[in-house]
């Protein structure tokens, strides 16, 4: 093929490691460049525009704590998803698992909250666990309930895939809508705050079930520390453990995995339960942390954004941590751009979309080499 000036792409024998790390950075730089052009087109100082998106959200502990707060559920969900995607199991229902985690944790918090809560009927007297649950037990119970809720929701997907060979993409996605309806039913119905004028919300949880902030005056809670701990754990599980190796092999070469005697069923259940549990934990921490009550608006699409985070982070725990922070930075930067520069809110979506687009484009470089038609080959 002799196309005049267009470059040609030749597949590389081996994907380039350097470029697979560099490609998100190049994508980010290209997005920033595009952003600067957009700012100029909108009549704003590009430098100010970029600083609002990329510097101001991190300028100082308080704004940075908000970035990390927003990133926490994204990172937790994405870590679990990376396990799924590495084992070639396409769980796209982290949003539903997140919601179930929130519901289970919220239910537990209301139940432990004692007779004045909406679950007062169930928790007659001082609450059935009053004797057992000294104060320090309350929060772990709430978080565990969240993990169990998320994992149970993912288990439905695993069961249907395992027993009926149902497509996990469809099942997990559809279960998101079921979870949303379930949440709506609960906050409009049995769990509704009796003193809330029929507004869809539960009473505020008992303070003993709140996730305490890391620092007074901020909303960033201990969940972020858990997310930081989860990163090396997932790194170890994915790259240094026998089970992680099995998952990886069954993802990359199912036939080889079968030949080696690795159980595909086991991989399926492990991946889905872990990712469901992680999403559920994220949901639990969202309601026990900043929200402290259930409303229909518990999630703003964390489970879906986490899919983007997982891929921008190259399905690598460290990458996911960075990607989660980057995405929440852009989200908050989008709010700043509105309040400080009077730019439209749709800009955030444009940046997110263009960054993904650039990333996909840059990924071509990982697997292919660019040949410019006017450059002579050096090798014979």
């Amino acid at each position, binding site marked *: 093929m002799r196309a005049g000036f267009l470059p040609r792409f030749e597949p590389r024998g081996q994907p380039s490691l350097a470029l697979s790390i560099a490609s998100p*950075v190049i994508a*980010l*730089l290209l997005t*920033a*460049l595009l952003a*600067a*052009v957009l700012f*100029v087109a909108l009549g704003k100082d*590009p*430098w100010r525009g*970029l*600083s609002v998106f*990329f*510097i101001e959200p*991190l*300028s*100082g*502990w*308080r*704004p*940075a704590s*908000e970035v990390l*707060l*927003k990133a926490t559920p994204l990172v937790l969900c994405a870590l679990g998803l990376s396990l799924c995607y590495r084992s070639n199991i396409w769980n796209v229902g982290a949003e539903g698992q997140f919601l179930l985690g929130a519901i289970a944790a919220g239910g537990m918090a209301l139940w432990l909250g004692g007779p004045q809560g909406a679950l007062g009927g169930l928790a007659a007297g001082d609450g059935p666990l009053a004797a057992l649950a000294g104060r320090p037990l309350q929060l772990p119970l709430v978080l565990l309930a969240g993990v169990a809720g998320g994992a149970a929701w993912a288990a439905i997907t695993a069961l249907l895939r395992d027993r009926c060979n149902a497509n996990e993409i469809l099942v997990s996605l559809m279960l998101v809508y079921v979870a949303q309806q379930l949440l*709506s*039913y609960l906050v*409009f*119905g*049995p769990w*509704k705050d*009796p003193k809330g*004028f*029929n*507004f*869809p919300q539960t009473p*505020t949880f008992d303070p003993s079930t709140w996730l305490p902030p890391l*620092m007074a*005056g901020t*909303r960033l809670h201990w969940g972020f520390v858990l997310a930081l701990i989860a990163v090396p754990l997932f790194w170890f599980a994915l790259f240094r453990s026998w089970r992680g190796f099995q998952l990886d092999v069954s993802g990359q070469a199912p036939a080889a995995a079968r030949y080696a005697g690795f159980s595909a069923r086991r991989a399926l259940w492990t991946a889905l339960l872990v990712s469901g549990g992680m999403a559920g934990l994220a949901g639990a921490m*969202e309601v026990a*942390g*900043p*929200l402290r*009550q259930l*409303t*229909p*608006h*518990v*999630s*703003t699409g964390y489970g879906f954004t986490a899919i983007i985070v997982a891929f921008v982070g190259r399905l690598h725990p460290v990458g996911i941590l960075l990607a989660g922070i980057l995405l929440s930075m852009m989200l*908050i930067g989008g*709010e*700043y751009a*509105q*309040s*400080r520069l*009077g730019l*439209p*809110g*749709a800009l955030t979506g444009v940046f997110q979309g263009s960054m993904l687009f650039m990333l996909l484009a840059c990924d071509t470089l990982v697997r292919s080499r660019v040949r410019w038609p006017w450059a002579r080959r050096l090798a014979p």
Partner: protein
Amino acid sequence: MTDRSRRQLVRLAGSLSALAAAGLLAACGKQEPAAPKAEAKAEPKQADPLKAAWIYVGPVGDAGWSYAHDLGRKAVEAKFGSAVSTSFVEKVPEGADAERVIRDLAQQGNKIIFATSFGYMEPMLKVAGDFPDVKFEHATGYKSAPNMRIYDASLYQDAYLAGVIAGRMTKTGTLGFVGSFPIPEVLRNINAYTLGARSVNPKVRTRVVWVNTWFDPARESEAAQTLINQGADVLLQNTDSTAVLQTAEKNGKFAFGWDSDMSAFGPKAHLASAIINWGPYYIKAIDDVLKGSWQTGRTIWGVKEDLNDLVKIADVVPDETKDLVAKIKAGMKDDSFEVFSGPIVDNAGKERLPKDQKADRAWKDKVDFFVAGVEGKVPSGS
């Protein structure tokens, strides 16, 4: 693009990664100093314009609720000129994100902040406690604080007037209502719409479909289609987009505009628009702050104060109906007419307001039922 700005861009891109890293480092380095410091450095000088900020639940281009609030913000800009500088953040979710946005606006030196959706109540209450010098205004809620007050419109009056027109225009005797959330405000509107219709046409029934969102054109449109398929031929909605009106237009049915003038979105279907003109309230609120006379409380304005109104009544509506609407509106203006006047019976036959009694504010706040003529039950577990 000039050569200079191009060079600027290239430089920018080049230094960006370094800066991002520097930002991160700076953030980590600043972990030590105590938190309250950031809140102390609020307002620098007196001569600066008063900073006022709004947060919207939808996009300002929704042509409905958020758009109407933004018109109010623009009215403030027009009225006060350089004495006030305004800003807004749109599409703010009603969850954990709202608190961050409100807090940031307060830290940015805004002296008065308007939160224009119910779901901002708890977040705003939390922030209000930390910024005693900032005035907070929350639309449609029920919780207040010494520096947080409530304002609301009386859209049920518009809904009643729309109901009068709907009662006259319906051929099937079935009206449709696309509801957002079964909260008192929305239930009031459904009830008022039905009461208005039955005041001129006692056989009218109202069907309701809930969409559980304030703004989702696709779902609103689906709900409208469902209602039309069930025989409803005049639709009203308590959601923020133009989707219901557009769906009615497509099906050759009638509908109303809600929150702002939507006549352009369904020229044939459009019977009238229930509008809210937030400008006068926002101007008063800003004025209160400028004069130092701002006090907490609850302000509910209506037709009487020109805050909400039913406008752009279509030509297809008979003159006699238009006259009737004008007469009722005049009654609302001089307080001789109250939408919720007894006897009011719910759709299970229970009397909710005795004969010869007019509903007071407390009664209206607690509406949790459908009046006779509305089909179905209020979604609720209790």
